[in-house]
């Protein structure tokens, strides 16, 4: 329990230890911890930024989706309208074509009827003449009475 030179030896030792700690121990550890602190702060900030950007992107995606839906609806409406138009057009075309076909058919029929009538008339005249020839044989001169016969034919 004597106070002696140990006192000063301890002071010097203590000083050297503190100096060493101050030069070679404290600063590197402090530096690393500060660096980690910065990195964590940066990381958190980046995460925050990412989150905000995601929100923004989601909002934009929603807007785009909305817009696309609107456009799609418009396109569909237009297409439906156009389809209606096409159907109407086709209907009217078909009607016109049908009418035309009917008219043509009627004309054909009339023509056939006329032709048949003509043939019938000719044959009837011929038959009439032939019959008359048989009945009247000699009394009737074909040449002399031809105009009478023609008139008869025309009357049929």
């Amino acid at each position, binding site marked *: *329990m*004597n*106070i*002696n*030179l*140990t*006192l*000063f*030896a*301890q*002071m010097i*030792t*203590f*000083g050297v*230890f*503190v100096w*060493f*700690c*101050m030069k*070679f*121990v*404290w*600063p*590197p*550890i*402090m530096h*690393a*911890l500060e*660096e*980690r602190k910065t*990195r964590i702060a940066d990381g958190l900030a980046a995460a925050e930024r990412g989150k905000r950007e995601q929100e923004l992107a989601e909002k934009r995606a929603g807007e785009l989706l909305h817009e696309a839906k609107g456009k799609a609806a418009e396109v569909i409406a237009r297409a439906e309208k156009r389809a209606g138009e096409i159907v109407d057009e086709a209907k009217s075309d078909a009607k016109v074509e049908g009418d035309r076909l009917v008219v043509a058919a009627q004309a054909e029929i009339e023509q056939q009827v006329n032709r048949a009538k003509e043939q019938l008339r000719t044959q009837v005249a011929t038959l009439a003449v032939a019959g008359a020839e048989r009945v009247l044989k000699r009394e009737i001169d074909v040449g002399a009475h031809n105009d009478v016969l023609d008139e008869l034919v025309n009357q049929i």
Partner: protein
Amino acid sequence: MAGGTLTSGEYIKHHLTNWTYGQHPDGTWGFAHSAAEAKEMGFWAIHVDSMLWSIGIGLLFLYLFRKVAKTITSDTPNGWQNFVEWIFDFIDDNVRGSFSGGKNDVVAPLALTIFIWVFLMNLMDLVPVDLLPRLAQEAGAFFFGADPHHVYFKVVPTTDPNVTFGMALAVFVLMLYYSFKIKGVGGFLGELAFQPFGKAGLPANLILEGISLISKPVSLALRLFGNLYAGEMIFILIALLYSGGVAWGVLGGFLQLGWAIFHILIITLQAFIFMVLTIVYLDMAHQEH
């Protein structure tokens, strides 16, 4: 029990004597062979055991922390680095909390050194009191042919007042240095002379402030020394029980265990108090009144 033929008083005294190297009264230098011889050496002597243990422990502390400081990364820490960072944060928090003197590169490393060094030196108190001294006696007798009764070996440096006063004085020097640096010579002396009673009460002021200034390092050193010295003393007294037969020995075993567990608290607390008071005193040296 060391020696076997010692009386209790001699045993205790033997345990409380340092291994001393110094100048004998006749002018020659050498180791003291008894407590009386160590006392006669006066100032020109050095406690070899205190120096060896304190320097060894200090180097261990610096080695362990330097190892981390060299390889430290700001990535995920692991193992020992984790532990060091935990201590480091603890010290840093304390310094930030107690020290408001602006930027100072000395206080924090100083606090770290004090806390760990003092804690490790105190920790030597938990080594059974007879183990290392006995080993030293055997080694001294075996290697150097020394009389075992003349081999003294104290393993807890903080039970040596030289150690605690050495640290407290170093802190005191820093206190004076910062007081003069921050407040200027006039400012600091003015603080001593003109407070708290103003100019009229100058002598009273000087006495009051002087005592309060001196009491800081003295209390710092004596608190640590007193606690550890008392703790060591109780361990020695408990160790004396072992020579009193089986019943006393069993009782001593339980007492030693209990005291050691309680002492874990004390050694940590004393290291912490020494550190915090150092920070506070240096903070006061930075405050202008």
